[in-house]
């Protein structure tokens, strides 16, 4: 009988974390467009992964689990923010200081905004099929849908991105 020790479990998680953390962060960053937020979301996802490590380690694609968890956490965060009461007038904290957040480098804002505006299922397909570079069958299995449905969602998502991201359109009309 195999005894799964705490140290072994931790070492396994550490190896997993070290090998995929940056890739997960970059995928989430492309989707949310904010460096600090992306890191928070990925840290949260890895925290949940560690708390459910037995389940996550048995997942067919553990790093895809982390990315999905991070993006779902982002959806929850976004919903909470949308419930905020809008204020008619919010003066700047201090006029001498710019209001924009001068944080760490962010991903392409227009791309992140366009991905974020996609319907949930299309966004998941883009994330898993394109950014996580999974094949159609694996993506379908993870999402619990048919491979053909993955293709439909992917095609619609790409069509939407083509219309919303100027650089995607510009290249098409360039001679």
């Amino acid at each position: 009988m195999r005894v799964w020790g705490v140290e072994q479990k931790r070492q396994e998680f550490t190896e997993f974390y070290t090998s995929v953390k940056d890739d997960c962060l970059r995928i989430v960053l492309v989707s949310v467009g904010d460096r600090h937020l992306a890191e928070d979301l990925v840290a949260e996802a890895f925290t949940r992964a560690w708390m459910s490590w037995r389940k996550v380690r048995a997942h067919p694609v553990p790093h895809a689990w982390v990315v999905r968890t991070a993006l779902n956490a982002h959806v929850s965060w976004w919903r909470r923010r949308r419930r905020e009461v809008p204020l008619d007038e919010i003066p700047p904290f201090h006029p001498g200081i710019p209001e924009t957040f001068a944080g760490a480098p962010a991903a392409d804002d227009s791309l992140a905004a366009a991905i974020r505006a996609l319907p949930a299922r299309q966004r998941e397909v883009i994330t898993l099929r394109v950014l996580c570079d999974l094949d159609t069958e694996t993506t379908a299995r993870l999402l619990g849908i048919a491979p053909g449905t993955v293709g439909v969602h992917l095609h619609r998502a790409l069509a939407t991105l083509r219309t919303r991201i100027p650089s995607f359109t510009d290249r098409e009309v360039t001679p």
Partner: protein
Amino acid sequence: MNDDEIMAALRDAKESLTDVHMTRTADSIVARARNRRLRRSLSVAGAGTLALGVGLGVGFSGTSGVTPASSGKSVHVNLADWSVNTTSAGTVQLTVRDFSDPTLLQQTLAQAGVPAAITVGKVCEASASDQPPAGSGPIITASKGGGGVTFTINAAQMPAGTELSIGVLNPSSQTWQTGVSLVEDGAALVCQNQPFSTPVGPVTLNISQSQGQMSASGRSKGFGGPGLGGGKAPGSGASSGSSHGAGKGSASG
């Protein structure tokens, strides 16, 4: 562009982020999970396991270390730069005329029953994924008076395991600023050296100036996000540009 080209462009967008790395270690992730488990255990165990709670308190190292005093303690500390006074209503009045000796201020607030962590040069709030539980009523109000800005703090409304994160910017200048947020012990914080422009907290304290009154609006529960204080602008408090020119602001639950 056809579908393949767009997919390639998306992958390129990700690959271009080669200089983006997770700064947190696996150990910090594991520690965070451990703290969360402990908090859940403590909240389930309740007051009957006080001895256990004391023992587990060691596990929360890395938090401010501020220990709230008993709620009934009377504290009256009045210095030239700031004052901390408990009131008969059970609230704590913090009046700031100038920011000096933040360590002493933090200790004094703790004695008055207000767990707080004071940071100088940066303001901090809980990250999006580590929000504190919502409170049930008003926690803090801000008004101009007493030669500075007075915060009235109702610590009884602070959810268990939370503390105020008070950040001070430009403390040595004539127009210091402060941002206040509610954070949970052990929560991951997002800090910056300028005021919050996009509050993350589940409840925000946004002070605006309207019809000569400084008013505040927040979301439906508790208090979080940035609160705004102001500095001493000689001769013209209102022209200091901050939102404490007159009147009163509050965050309510």
